[in-house]
């Protein structure tokens, strides 16, 4: 996807990538030489000393101090060089520059969320300015995850009981993969986000826009955007296919049945409750796996999501439709 991709290392887009790659290629070429020597020796020996006829008696030398010292000392020196080099680059990977901006990263099955100091939060897409050190304060809400951006050569486990730290300074604009690399369950392989590196100017604009819908955008369209960016899409489809969670297609205004046997007609209040307190009612046939979005969405965003789900109803209520019904508790008790 990126230019600069080599056969081995992916394109490097952070300040530390060069260091890491240089060490990688040093070991790589040293290994290549060693492998060539070993393979050549094997081939040469089996050709030259191939048994023909009787085995007979063979050379009695089983020891050669000079040789043994040589092949102990040379690799030892080599690995110490590699150790020291790896150590040095590791320190660079670990010492956070003092002027770094700080972003909180939360890992949670199976999406990433980011909290900016400005009070903005985002899901699965981390937007950062280029040429500015970014310090990430990582924590998990459930099991262990690991934050990995191959193009930046950084990786750090995300733990449920403490903060861990990683940092990077992106050198090029673009959109880079963010993988979870600590196995975390069913959709571990889909816990993929993006790190979007933009110019400093674009970053300022993004910060402003992140507060609400852009001009001229309808609430439902903003909701659709949130549906993508807040990772609802991970579990809820909009084409009617059930996944980990019910599809949003044609649910508004329909009857929903729950695990405890009760049922109700899906309305605005129910959707709001499902987002903020997802474990309050579990739709029949599904697991209580959805995390709460309390504190991660503001009122405008909640309204937008409700509007979006409404727009997917089989018979979307007209704009002037009976809004009053929304407040009516339409619960029907079933047998038990």
């Amino acid at each position, binding site marked *: 996807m990126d230019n600069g*991709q080599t*056969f*081995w*290392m*992916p394109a490097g887009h952070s300040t530390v990538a060069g260091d*890491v790659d240089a060490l*990688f290629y040093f*070991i*790589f070429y040293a290994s290549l030489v*060693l*492998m060539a020597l070993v393979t050549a*020796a*094997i081939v040469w*020996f*089996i050709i030259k*000393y*191939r*048994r023909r006829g*009787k*085995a*007979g008696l*063979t*050379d009695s030398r*089983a*020891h*050669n101090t000079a*040789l043994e010292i040589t*092949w*102990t000392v040379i*690799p030892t020196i080599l*690995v*110490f060089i590699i*150790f020291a080099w*790896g*150590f040095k*680059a*590791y*320190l660079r*990977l*670990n010492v956070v520059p003092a002027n770094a901006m700080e972003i909180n990263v939360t890992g949670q099955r199976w999406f990433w969320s980011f909290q900016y100091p400005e009070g903005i939060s985002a899901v699965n897409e981390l937007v950062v300015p280029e040429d500015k050190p970014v310090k990430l304060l990582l924590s998990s809400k459930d*099991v*262990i995850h*690991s934050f*990995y951006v191959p193009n930046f*050569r*950084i*990786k*750090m486990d995300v*733990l*449920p*009981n403490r903060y*861990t730290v990683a940092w990077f300074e992106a050198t090029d604009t673009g959109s880079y*993969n963010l*993988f979870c*690399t*600590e*196995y975390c369950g*069913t*959709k*571990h392989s889909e816990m993929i986000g993006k790190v979007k590196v933009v110019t400093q100017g674009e970053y300022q604009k993004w910060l402003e826009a992140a507060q609400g819908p852009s001009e001229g955008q309808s609430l439902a369209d903003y909701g659709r955007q949130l549906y993508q960016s807040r990772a609802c899409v991970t579990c809820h489809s909009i084409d009617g296919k059930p996944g980990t969670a019910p599809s949003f297609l044609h649910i508004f205004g329909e009857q929903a049945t729950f695990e405890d046997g009760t049922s109700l007609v899906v309305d605005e209040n129910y959707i709001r409750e499902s987002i903020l307190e997802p474990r309050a009612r579990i739709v029949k046939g599904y697991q209580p796996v959805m995390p709460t979005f309390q504190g991660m969405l503001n009122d405008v965003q909640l309204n937008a999501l409700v509007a979006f789900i409404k727009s997917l109803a089989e018979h979307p209520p007209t704009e002037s439709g009976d809004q009053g019904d929304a407040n009516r508790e339409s619960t029907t008790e079933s047998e038990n």
Partner: protein
Amino acid sequence: MSTASANVIPERNYLNDPKGLKSWLLTKDHKRIGLMYLFAIMFFFLLGGIFALLIRWELLTPAVDIMEHDTYNKMFTLHGAVMIFLFIIPSIPAALGNFVLPLMLGAKDVAFPRLNLASWYVYCLGALFMIYALVTNPADTGWTFYTPYSTQTNTAVISTTLGVFILGFSSIFTGLNFIVTIHKLRAPGMTWFRMPLFAWGTYATAILQVLATPVIGITFVLLIMERLLGIGIFDPALGGDPVLYQHFFWFYSHPAVYIMILPGMAIISETVSVFSHKKIFGYKLIAFSSLGIAFVSFLVWGHHMFTSGQSELAAIMFSFLTFLVGIPSGIKVFNWLATMYRGSISLEAPMLYTLSFLILFTIGGITGIFLGALAIDIHVHDTYFVVAHFHYVMMGGTVMAFLAGIHYWWPKIWGRMYNEFWAKIACALIFIGFNMTFFTQFIMGTQGMPRRYFTYLEQYQPMHGFSSIGAFVIGAGFVIMAVYLIAAIFKGRPAGNNPWGSLSFEWLTSSPPPHGNFDEEPVLEHGPYDYDTIEVVATK
């Protein structure tokens, strides 16, 4: 020396004397117990292999090919747990080692034959727990059972880890038995430095088995208690620390890597000398490097945790020690190469597997250097690079050595030869298929493909596809091997006492050996590698 046509199978040997199922199930004969272990582990190797092929089949494309997310997650857990705990760990020590070690030492049996039999039954009991988990609701945690995931998932973590806990006892029993056997039961004249290197390797392994296994035992007890009682040792929600689990786990599981590879190195030290018909080069260096590796292996567990948030200082120490453990392994490779120099090399099947080992293990070892270097490990940790690295070491290393051993001792175990032509074909298929499967994974991993992924980004598809095809090539190799090895048991031509012209003790007795190993008490007249002074002729 007898010629090939004169070879006969001795009328009474350990296989038919005494007869009857009961005499097998209650046997205290190390050869029979070794054979029973061999059947058990081969069954689980087949099972683990099927899981591996299903995994590779699913990964052919990023889409859902044959299974869903959760099934896949269970599948790779099963593959890892079965291959490691039920196959590789007992493979060389408990199966081949049990058979060969007392013979090599000129002993009639291991020190504690009853404990040896108990070890097999304990293994079966542990395996039953794991099979129970397998047929009910297999664990989906990965073979590492990291907390807190493993304390939260609703799959059968308890019966799986209980199975591993029980298997630990069988491993301890075997290790304890071997240490005492080597110390106390060597034949007259068999001094420490006249022992075959296989005995040295098993000795180092046994020390690890005895010292490391109890720790995984208590770790899994704590994990089980965490699930049952919520004791709060590993669960962060209850004040515990999930990283402590990782420390405990790797304190065992890193030495366990050497429990797996040291016996492999031990076999190679035998075969490379026998099939080069030459004195082993640097005997003492090889022997001591095994002990050195065993010792340092206890001090490097933290290199599995460079990204876990452990302190930088710890990471640096562990990285340094990791490089230390790499050096003796490198020395061994050079010694094996030097053994071939000016030898009289015969390229029979065991030697082909030995050469495969030399190449694949060297690649596995070198890639370990990449992983030991801190800054690179941060990038490739938990990617396919690591998957490829440990498959090169565990399969390219241990399994290749195991196969070399199987082909080397098969005539001793059964008294009959297998078909050499098909053995060569199978070896070639496995070698080629292996490199197709796993070399690709080095490239993928370096490019950032994380491990334990059910689906993946489109950009990795060509390499995943190629890797999957390779897996089926390996599978084909193993099918061929199974056929000719089993055929040899029934129809192979008699091998004679010493088909390869080897100098170590186990070839002095008949093939298959009699019940008490040697008809007369063996006396050591020469070292196991004296190919420079003793003229020995193969009976094949």
